[in-house]
């Protein structure tokens, strides 16, 4: 269908400078409300980054901008050195290797767990391929492995709609894994999970870093502490502070506007 799209997907982002994502001077406003305000953010290759911030600080909007759902009013967003993400739409961005897990788990309810993963596999996503495609042995193995990883092996043929909230979260993470993205954007991965589930998630995310770059938005400070190496604090649409968890927690500015408000978290 669109062979031209094959090239960037195959080449991947140019990360010779060690950076996979550049966001510079990005502003977004809705009806006068500045959701992002002159924001600058850089994600290193293989890094695990946590984004924290109060409601309305711009976390979800930031993800929307990266994944092409929202167009910023000003600013540049580039993936590696060569891809200007603002020129691509959602599906192209996804095929470039940026995966996203939503705040509210969104899986394909009518499809089986296995098919959810099948659709997410990294492969040519054009219509003609899809029409004639059969799973190869390798792909079947991939799916089985991911099913195992996310602990849904015995649910493989059940429709996703019958899964529990936590299981859906896992499935969505599984879908991310299947896509083998370079950059993962994970929005509140442990909401609705039990403590042990959350621990496993933390483990998984940590293990992903290195090979992938991971950006996690989370409210659960315990969880953030357990995985984070670098934390970025967003406030009113801009970066307030950036650093290790400890450095952040001792930052007076942060204390004032963020921890001060949700200090008990």
């Amino acid at each position, binding site marked *: 269908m669109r062979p031209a799209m094959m090239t960037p997907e195959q080449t991947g982002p140019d990360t010779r400078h060690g950076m996979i994502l550049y966001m510079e001077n990005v502003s977004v406003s*809705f*009806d006068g409300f500045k*959701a992002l305000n002159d924001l600058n953010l850089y994600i290193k290759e293989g890094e695990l980054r946590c984004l924290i911030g109060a409601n309305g600080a711009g976390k979800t*909007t930031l993800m929307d901008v990266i994944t092409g759902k929202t167009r910023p009013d000003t600013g540049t967003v580039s993936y590696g050195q060569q891809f200007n993400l603002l020129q691509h739409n959602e599906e192209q961005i996804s095929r470039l290797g940026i995966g996203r897990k939503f705040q509210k788990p969104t899986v394909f309810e009518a499809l089986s767990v296995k098919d959810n993963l099948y659709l997410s596999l990294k492969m040519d996503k054009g219509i003609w391929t899809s029409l004639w495609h059969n799973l190869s042995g390798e792909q079947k193995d991939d799916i089985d492995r991911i099913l195992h990883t996310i602990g849904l092996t015995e649910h493989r043929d059940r429709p996703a709609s019958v899964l529990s909230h936590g299981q859906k979260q896992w499935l969505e993470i599984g879908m991310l894994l299947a896509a083998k993205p370079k950059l993962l954007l994970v929005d509140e991965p442990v909401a609705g999970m039990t403590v042990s589930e959350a621990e496993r998630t933390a483990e998984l995310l940590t293990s992903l870093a290195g090979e992938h770059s991971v950006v996690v938005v989370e409210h659960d400070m315990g969880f953030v502490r357990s995985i984070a190496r670098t934390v970025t604090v967003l406030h009113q649409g801009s970066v307030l502070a950036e650093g290790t968890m400890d450095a952040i927690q001792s930052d007076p500015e942060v204390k004032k506007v963020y921890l001060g408000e949700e200090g008990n978290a």
Partner: protein
Amino acid sequence: MVKPFLALFFVLSFLGMAFNVGAEEQSFEELVAELPDTNFKTLPALLDKFAEQDDPRTAILLTNLLGGDVYYHPRSQQVITMTKVQGERQFIDVLTSEVIAEPSGVRLRKVRVNNSVRSHIRQLQAQQNISDSNPDVRLKAVKNLLSDVDQISPQLLANRLQKEQDSDIHALLSAIAALHELDSGDESKQLDAINTLRGNLQPDVRIALMQLQQRDALPETVRDALNSTLAGIETQRKWYGWAENIFFGVSMGSVLLLAAIGLAITFGVMGVINMAHGEMIMLGAYTTYVIQQAFPGLIEYSLLMAVPAAFLVSGFVGIVIERSVIQFLKGRPLETLLATFGISLILQQLVRTVFSPLNRQVAAPEWMSGSLQINPVFSVTYNRLYIILFSLTVFFALMIFLKKSSLGLHVRAVAQNRDMARALSVKSNWVDAATFGLGSGIAGVAGVVLSQLTNVGPNLGQSYIIDSFLVVVFGGVASLWGTLVSAMTLGIVNKFLEPVTGPVLATIIVLVGLVFFIQKRPMGLFPQKGRAE
């Protein structure tokens, strides 16, 4: 040699007799007795004889003839007028002017008049009425004379010009005088006349000027004056042509608005694909019919009564539909299409069964008939004018209602976020029923208006449903302002295209334009705002 003389004698004496008979004044009674035997060719002459008389019954007879109300009994030849007084037939003997009983057992024969007879009667009336004491009657009479200015003698005209106090009538009389002068052949008189007629938009004046323009032998000065006067008239006509188009567009827009506004509520706010919307309109129109049947004497007020009645009838039916069907289809908006389509079939057939498949006659009250003459080339029909005002009134009343009333608040809350509204203990069931009733009721009100414009029949609704959906979608679902702007835009665009392309192509162009427009703005003119989705 004798024979020709003899023949001449006979001819002459016969003519003399005929002349004598003709000259002999016939009585009103005798003339009336001749009425049954007339035809279109002989009637005007007979009427002239009536006019020569001073009988007061003549004026009444002429009026009744004009209305086609004069009959005669096929056997007794008695001439009778039959008029409807408050829906009841009334029979009056023309000679005695007394009310009589309905002649039984026969179909009364009509004293038939046709267009030429009618226009003859009108001229007879005009000549009489030009001196009438009532200025309205005089105005009508003078206007009638304008189309054929030779009917009035210069003496009478001069006389009337002197006496006439009313400025409008005076202006018309001067125009007639000027038209007389145009033919005079005297250069200065012609120039005066042309200057008098400068800016006069009467079509008859324009025709007379154009005819003058055709003539070869015209003094240069006259031709110049003539050309500039005509050019001025043409410019004005063009401007008023635009004004007229805008009026037509707005009027079409307001009909679309009325038809769509109910749907903007049931479909736009509630998300019900209400295929029975057209039938709600239809019910409103039939309500008007029923009201007029129930109160035949109150035709003038029937529309005022019909508006609340139609609102209640359609609103009630709407609530019944919501309670009995739609409430069970929550969260399955597409299936409401199926159910309401079924309901629309049932309602159509119901009306067909109850009221017959024929169109029903809904009378137009006097105040909705005719047109408001702004000037001779630009007039707006009263019914359209009232409809524009009415639909805007309904629109703003609805806006205010939704803003201020508690139901309105609840409606908006439910429309924006059903779950949240429920959480805030808005009784969304009740609100749904009331909303659907409101939308249906307004559709019913639209039906009252449409009964003044189009057929009141079982298919009435079908002809408006597609337009209504288009208007709502073009405006942006759930935006009442959008519906207003969209209806007016569609109306005006249509009316400006129509003279260029013809009505069929205009509609097609508008539709294709709409399809392209939606590609540019997938949520219509006024999309609902929001950050997510």
